[in-house]
């Protein structure tokens, strides 16, 4: 805590989209409450503190540091290590920091394939000499560096000790505010073992207002093919909702837009692998008494890996293609 009695907080983005940073603004007028009790000492998207400023802080200077995004390159790992050293409490913020998030879908591809699509073979590319970004480039006046691109996307806890984790893509404002209050009020120990906060121990299904008619799935259907019946469980209607295999905390917001749960809060409490959890749930929900019928239904599932692990590949048993 600073001489003015205020907390020092930081926010960093790694392999992420900025939505987490925006979600912090989602707390709305409570933002004024936050800045009354806390000084921001690092937040690249909103404030002019540089890496050299952070490096000059004494160790443990930052009371609470929120790190969003997964770790895709060497700079993101270096900053994670720097912020760990400078922070009393390090919080993995959002689906990407917690489980890899959507950028970790890249773990299904090789680096060579990613470079190929980005720099060599796409409809608008003009790269006759086959140039690729290089970690070090010798310009006329000196070397230029860019971070090394890793083979796969790692979650924050894969590279550094994390005290708390707030899941969600992005975390929802009320949950974020509760978590901030807990840390700011000193109501929780500063160091911990990657404990998940800002969520509950239930599943999205548990907090979904839609009615379950307890009928089995007769056919899988895609959103553009069908107008779902309002108020009725979309999974029972054959739309691949991740609700049964997703931790709650969001308030089933996507279901309120008549869309399926995408699974952004990651696996439920005490479950390591979200996909395995979903497969288990589906096992009891299919309208199939024979193996043949079960296979017919399973064949209707498009992109099971990208659907069951959309936000959690880094933490899954699949991890990455090498």
């Amino acid at each position, binding site marked *: 805590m600073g001489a003015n009695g205020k907390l020092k907080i930081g926010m960093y983005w790694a392999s992420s989209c900025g939505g987490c940073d925006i979600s912090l603004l*989602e707390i709305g007028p409570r933002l*004024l409450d936050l800045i009354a009790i806390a000084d921001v000492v690092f937040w690249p*998207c909103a404030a002019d503190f*540089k890496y050299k400023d952070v490096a000059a802080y004494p160790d443990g200077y930052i009371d609470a540091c929120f790190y969003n995004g997964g770790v895709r390159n060497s*700079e993101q790992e270096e900053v994670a290590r720097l912020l760990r050293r400078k922070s009393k409490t390090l919080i993995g913020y959002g689906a990407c920091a917690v489980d890899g998030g959507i950028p970790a879908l890249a773990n299904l*591809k090789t680096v060579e394939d990613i470079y190929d699509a980005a720099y060599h073979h796409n*409809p608008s590319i003009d790269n006759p000499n086959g*140039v690729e970004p290089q970690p070090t480039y010798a310009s*006329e*006046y000196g070397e230029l560096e860019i971070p090394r691109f890793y083979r796969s996307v790692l979650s924050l806890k894969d590279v550094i000790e994390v005290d708390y984790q707030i899941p969600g893509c992005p975390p929802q404002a009320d949950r974020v505010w509760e978590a901030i209050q807990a840390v700011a009020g000193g109501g929780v120990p500063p160091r911990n073992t990657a404990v998940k906060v800002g969520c509950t121990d239930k599943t999205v299904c548990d907090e979904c207002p839609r009615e379950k008619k307890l009928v089995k799935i007769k056919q899988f259907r895609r959103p553009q093919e069908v107008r779902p019946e309002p108020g009725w469980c979309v999974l029972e209607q054959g739309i691949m909702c991740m609700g049964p295999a997703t931790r709650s905390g969001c308030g089933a917001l996507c279901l309120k837009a008549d869309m399926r749960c995408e699974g952004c809060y990651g696996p439920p409490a005490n479950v390591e692998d979200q996909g395995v959890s979903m497969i288990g749930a589906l096992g009891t929900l299919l309208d199939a008494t024979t193996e043949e019928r079960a296979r017919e239904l399973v064949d209707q599932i498009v992109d099971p890996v990208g659907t069951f692990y959309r936000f959690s590949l880094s933490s899954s048993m699949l991890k990455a293609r090498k």
Partner: protein
Amino acid sequence: MTSPHVKTKEGLRRISIDPVTRLEGHGKIDIFLDQDGNVADCFFQVPELRGFEKFCEGRPVEELPRITPRICGVCPEAHMMASAKACDAVYGADLPLTARMLRELQYNIFYVTDHTTHFYALGGPDFVMGPQSDPALRNLIGVIGKVGVAIGGEVIKCRTWGHEAAGIFGGKPVNPVNAIPGGMSKALKPEERDRLEEICRFMVEFGKFTLKLFHDVVLSNKEYVDLILNGPYYHETYSMGLVDEKNRVNFYDGKVRVVAPDGQELCKYAPPEYMQHIAERVEPWTYLKFPYLKKVGWKGFVGGKESGVYRATPQSRLNVADGMNSPLAQEAYEEYFETLTGDRSGKKPVHHTLAIHWARVIELMNAAERSLELVRHPEITHPENYRVVCDKIPREGVGIVEAPRGTLTHHYVTDERGIVQKANLIVGTTNNHAAICMSIKQAAQGLIRKGVDVTEGVLNMIEMAFRAYDPCFGCATHSLPGQMPLTVWVRDADGSVLTVVSR
């Protein structure tokens, strides 16, 4: 982070701005000074790649309006809409009027929210607080302290209400999920519409207020006007933007129009034709590509009519258009061109980089007015026409919208089941990549010269060259010198009070 052992040529000095701040995303500036202290060269590097184009392959195409918004969670609606439009094209879906209007309404409300973020939290602090003011206060919190909590509260209200609107449409306020091939996932209920109208009415008033604030803070300040007109922030480049059938600015739909530095039309293309007009170069020192105009050709990092470098910014959109589709924005458009070119018709393009901020608040006004017009349309709450069911065999499609940060193109090729085989994305800010590099170098060369003390303030003025292009979001730092009594109650799980913090 540049490692300590990185080599600089003997006799030269390197200044790094790392990371660049108050923008969405990552970036670093390396400036090389010669022995006299003049700028020998300057590089802007983007140190990140995530590979969306590759990992979109194999995904069902209807999921891309929810996957691609994670390219940028600051402007997720832009990706959601470009992606949904590409999906419509993939399925050959012909959207009913209500579906089209709902998309445009959601998108315009998002525009107001997004431009608000940039003006008040990202770019604006440089003007409200001063380009060389204390860096610890050169942010939204400093701005609120200076303009007062009452106005700051309105800014927060505009953002909060904007996100409430996003939630009404798309469930989640950040990364909404509601655009699908063929339209929207749900109809707009009459009571939801009523609330949206209230939000839109507020946004129109907020737009008027913001235009006035821009006048009071920026245009009434001689130093700032001088900085905009005569500072090292000027490039004559091509301009790109979407226009409707009357060549007026449209954020959601239309054709892409490109005009030369002198205002002559180079081309006007429909989304599927984008490949005839845009190509992208790769440089070894950055992860981000450099698009350019194919017909003009790549001549390096230079402006002018012979160079294919173009800009796609709020200013560019005004440059390519013959006007705005709403009255107050049209009035502001005429004043803008009158002041900057002497011709209120807008035929002569503006090339002053810092004037992009002005163009942005004019767009904010336009988006608010357009939202109010759409939300009042009698068909907007039609219970059926919010979508069509897709029944054609999927193939290939291109979707284009104007993201706040530039023309956004999504191009997908699928198999007959609608599984993506190939995705190509040309993203808002990427369009401006070459121009941003040029602007940063120009600012560095203009501001750092022999004998100049390179202070933090000078380096911030180099960053201002970048901020004019890439808005994005913001908020929060340091203490709030307002008068509002604030109390935070920290409760445990049972609701009993653990700590009360007041000031």
